[in-house]
């Protein structure tokens, strides 16, 4: 029943508590040591987790994200640039591979994060740099993926029948083909939509993405190209490197990890290295673009198209370049994805995927490279780690027949219902005060809240106490958190737009724009034209 001023005082005292800590971290030596301790701490935690533990999903869900988000902490810290680079390289090439050796699912996850980072960086060029909202971005990802899959899959498609299959070693060549083909796709999309902007562009690109997906579903007859909705499986992987296998075996023996799958682990490690290199390449290109005349032309187009034309920005060329660059990143990532999954189906290229990538760009901070990477990490972790592990955890609890005792159920229900009631009463306070005035009673806001809330809360408490305990066996089978990624994306998008439209790690320039437009746009304020 705290009113707003007291809650903000609480926040203030919390801030005061952390202030000495924050001041200490301004010192580079302390910050460096703290970061190294942090890294070792999470490494030790992760390497000590055992899959036999019934709480394993929950623990791994809590322990892995801090490790993955470590590079962002390093970037934010006040340290020497070389030391930062060293720390990031250490986490990328030592700690994460080591953790991956203990449990290869972490490898898998980090590769997925790299894949989505690449996609987010590509979409960031189109949406963030040039301001063209593209909801069909995943189509270019599909183009890259299908390009490699069609030439190497073991399904009897037109390519196999005509003996057009290529050896697995041509993977590296196809990474470049993926770039070229997807860039051509980007220009093909870009040409007809040059005149459109904003909402219309979003809808047309959405339509384009759906058309590509429907084509992939239906291009199995009369000639079989994509094998329809069954997808192409047995997609080739690049040949594994023997020295990598040897290295992994050696490290595993010296650390005392039981060697069970050095071969598949070295395959994973190879993908991991390729993915890291591709993302690094994309980051370099994106940074160079951002700081070039091209990047400035994109900014000009984003902020005011008409003014940009007037200033002599070659609009057609710049827009097409933005589409082509964004698409080419998706294309190379698509080839990697097809090869890594070894299976490609239209399911992976739905509108949801496009919106997921958009959510990454927006969560991190639209228009910034660091933001796009951060968003990709956060959203991928949420989607593939948190939700999935939550599902696994519920399954585990089901298997060991766990029960939430009735007092805990009562507490949870009371907390949730009570909080909702509090919000409702707070929103209705003016109404309640005026009602009380009608009855010739004068109360201030706080009094009326207490008078209304306390009896309500007592009723809720009495009812909550009568609830039975909850058995996890009764959890509905369809309510599997892993399948509710849309809920997460949806809430993320709305909440970000309302509270932090410039993202969690905003670029200074974008932040300025968002604030400026909020304060200067002449329009009817949200509190109504009346007041």
């Amino acid at each position, binding site marked *: 029943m705290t009113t707003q001023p007291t809650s903000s005082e609480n926040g203030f005292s919390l801030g005061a508590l952390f202030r000495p800590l924050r001041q200490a971290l301004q010192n580079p030596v302390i910050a460096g040591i703290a970061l190294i301790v942090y890294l070792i701490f999470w490494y030790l935690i992760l390497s000590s987790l055992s899959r036999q533990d019934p709480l394993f999903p929950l623990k791994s869900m809590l322990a892995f994200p801090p490790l993955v988000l470590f590079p962002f902490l390093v970037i934010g810290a006040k340290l020497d640039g070389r030391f930062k680079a060293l720390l990031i390289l250490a986490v990328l090439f030592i700690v994460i591979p080591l953790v991956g050796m203990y449990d290869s699912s972490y490898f898998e996850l980090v590769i997925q994060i790299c894949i989505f980072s690449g996609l987010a960086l590509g979409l960031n060029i189109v949406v963030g740099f040039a*301001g063209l*909202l593209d*909801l069909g971005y995943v189509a270019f990802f599909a183009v890259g993926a299908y390009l490699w899959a069609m030439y190497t899959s073991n399904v009897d498609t037109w390519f196999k029948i005509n003996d057009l299959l290529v050896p697995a070693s041509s993977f590296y060549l196809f990474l470049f083909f993926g770039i070229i083909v997807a860039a051509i796709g980007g220009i093909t999309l870009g040409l*007809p*939509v040059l*005149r*459109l902007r*904003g*909402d*219309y562009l*979003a*809808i*047309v690109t*959405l*339509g*384009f993405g*759906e*058309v590509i997906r*429907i*084509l992939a*579903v*239906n291009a199995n007859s*009369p000639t079989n190209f994509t094998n329809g909705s069954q997808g192409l499986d047995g997609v080739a992987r690049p040949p594994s490197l023997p020295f990598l296998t040897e290295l992994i075996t050696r490290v595993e023996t010296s650390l005392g990890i039981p060697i069970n799958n050095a071969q598949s682990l070295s395959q994973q490690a190879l993908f991991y290295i390729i993915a890291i290199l591709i993302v690094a390449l994309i980051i370099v290109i994106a940074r160079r673009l951002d700081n070039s005349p091209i990047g400035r032309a994109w900014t000009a187009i984003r902020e005011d198209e*008409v*003014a940009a034309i007037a200033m002599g920005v070659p609009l057609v060329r710049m827009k097409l370049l933005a589409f082509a660059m964004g698409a080419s990143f998706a294309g190379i990532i698509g080839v990697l994805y097809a090869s890594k999954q070894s299976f490609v189906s239209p399911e992976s290229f739905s*509108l*949801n995927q496009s*919106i997921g990538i*958009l*959510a990454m760009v*927006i969560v991190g901070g639209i228009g910034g490279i660091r933001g796009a990477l951060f968003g990709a990490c956060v959203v991928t972790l949420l989607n593939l780690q948190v939700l999935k592990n939550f599902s696994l955890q519920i399954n585990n609890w089901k298997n060991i027949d766990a029960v939430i005792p009735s007092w805990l159920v009562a507490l949870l229900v009371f907390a949730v219902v009570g909080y909702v009631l509090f919000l409702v009463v707070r929103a209705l306070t003016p109404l309640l005060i005026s009602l009380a005035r009608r009855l010739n009673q004068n109360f201030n806001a706080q009094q009326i809240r207490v008078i209304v809330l306390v009896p309500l809360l007592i009723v809720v408490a009495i009812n909550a106490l009568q609830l039975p305990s909850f058995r996890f066996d009764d959890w*509905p*089978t*369809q*309510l599997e958190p892993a399948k*509710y990624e*849309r*809920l997460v*994306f*949806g*809430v*993320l*998008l*709305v909440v970000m*737009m*309302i509270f932090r*439209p410039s993202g969690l790690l905003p670029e200074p320039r974008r932040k300025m*724009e*968002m604030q400026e*437009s*909020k304060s200067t*746009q*002449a*329009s*009817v*304020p*949200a509190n*109504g*034209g*009346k007041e």
Partner: protein
Amino acid sequence: MVSVRSTTDWLYRYVVFPVGQMLIFIIGAGLVVSVLAYLLAFLFPEPRPNIILVDQINRQLPGMLIAGVSLGFVYAMIALGYTLVYGVLKFINFAHSEIFMFGSVIGFEVMRRLDDTGYMQGWNPILLVAFIVLWAMLLSGLLAVLIERIAYRPLRGAPRLVPLISAIGVSLFLTDAVRAFQAITRNEFNLTYPTIDLPWLKNPIPLAFGETTVNVRVTSIIIIVAAVLMLVAMNYFVNGTKLGKGIRAVSQDMSTASLMGINVNYMISLTFFVGGSFGGAAGALFGMNVGTVTPFVGFIPGIKAFTAAVLGGIGNVTGALLGGLALGMIESFLNGILVYFPALGQRYTDVFAFSVLILILIFRPSGLLGERVDEKV
């Protein structure tokens, strides 16, 4: 608003004119599409061995027309929601397709609850349909208002992409929220309307057109009748009442309207309510027609209705009607005719709708009835 002098004048303005307009649109769209179909038959007389396309078209024409009109009205009702909101706020309410979905789920919930009581068979058919549709309208309208209040109002005046992204978020959230609700209460997502208990709804009515007899579905007739009634009411509301005048004023110029003493926020909420309730009604009628709905049912009709709104000219109420009818008619014909072309087949119907959308946006972004608006610098 010109003052209305007599009853005949009123009748002409609010009943005869809109109904006549609808009739003209239906006949026009039907004629154009029929001509195109026969042209196709002239170009490809025998797409498959032993199938004469002209004979097939002759046989199926009345059925396709009726199906096209009912489909077109569903699209038109959804398209109205897009167009009204666009008219007032100048942004595309991406979540509208999910409001349509919500309406269809509400229709299912109401009908199943009635069925559980066991008295549903005894209800008067008209009363039953009206009851279900009104519930769907009410709740969907309220949902639309709530969405506007929570997700769009705080973003008014922000750059254009911001509310659009928020709308996409709302749309995703609604799909999964409904899914989660159904998972908790029913543990499945395929919601089948209990129409099996209503023989009058299930059995088609045979209608004779010359030599051929067409089995017309009762739900098609319900959709057409309900849509005509609602569209007439809508026309009266927007053009004949004070509130409608307020909405039109806000859509013309928001800040001037607020200077004239119009409560802009109230008008915007009202617009969302009206648009949402039309979407919800369309959802319930659509659900009764197809029988089974899921939380994912909104996307395709939503995007097609959006296509319809753009086809007619977004922001233009008459345009939404025309666009919906035209698109429904085209789609119904494609469904009927593409079967005979083995290389294409019906599976490309959806691609066609998207292609129409893309082509209109590129060549005539203002739509059939819209006016060209020049970019303000």
